[in-house]
């Protein structure tokens, strides 16, 4: 058991059969993953509690984050390339724990928003929709 720092966490993107690190990532979020359930409450369900059961499917969610955007950087262009030329892509988060635990996932599509503000650095936020499920550490 350990308290793991976020500093040193790396996002990697597959490019030409290898994983390369994405530069200047400021934050990452893995959200929206959940096992799907269905409401099986019936008129003769006893008590006030509603009943649910698993459907056998799960939502993989998405991986999103923010980076300090460098429009001339090939690594950042490799992300926006997925908007101009949509394709599935393999990604990986490498956590900064002692064992550098990895969480791999396949991105089915990306979103990319650029923010230009008078009093801030050039930033972009991105969201990668997971195809199937991320490979959670086990």
């Amino acid at each position: 058991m350990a308290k793991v720092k976020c500093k040193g966490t790396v996002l990697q993107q597959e490019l030409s059969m290898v994983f390369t690190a994405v530069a200047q990532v400021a934050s990452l979020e893995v959200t929206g993953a959940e096992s799907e359930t269905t409401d099986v409450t019936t008129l003769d369900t006893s008590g006030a509690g509603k009943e649910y059961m698993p459907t056998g499917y799960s939502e993989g969610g998405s991986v999103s984050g923010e980076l300090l955007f460098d429009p001339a950087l090939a690594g950042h262009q490799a992300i926006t390339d997925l908007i101009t030329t949509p394709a599935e892509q393999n990604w990986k988060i490498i956590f900064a724990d002692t064992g550098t635990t990895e969480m791999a996932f396949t991105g089915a599509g990306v979103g990319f928003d650029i923010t230009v503000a008078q009093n801030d650095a050039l930033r972009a936020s991105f969201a990668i929709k997971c195809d199937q499920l991320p490979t959670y550490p086990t």
Partner: protein
Amino acid sequence: MKARLVHPLMMAPGHPDFVPGKKGQWLPVGTILEHPQAAGLVEQGVARCADAECEQAVRITEEQWQAAFKAYGPFSRGIAMEDYDAYHSGEMVGYDPETGDPIPGPNAPELEDD
């Protein structure tokens, strides 16, 4: 087109030798990769062109490549930008996973005894 790695990189599922679920599948410096987008590796500063087709496809200057090559080492290890100089000078090699403090490198200043 072909490119030669100048940084060690991990194999991705698209590589023919990739084994699913196996950790630490590193390709060493000098590995030549043949792929239609190999020029992208050169533009990220992790490889050099290994054939004329790659040379023609690359869209950055030598100066830009040098900057990308120098930057890749620290950011691929999760080094914060404010610590790039300390990383390049060998004063640190990374962060302690539990404390977040810099891990001293070979050129780290020696601590004085009290």
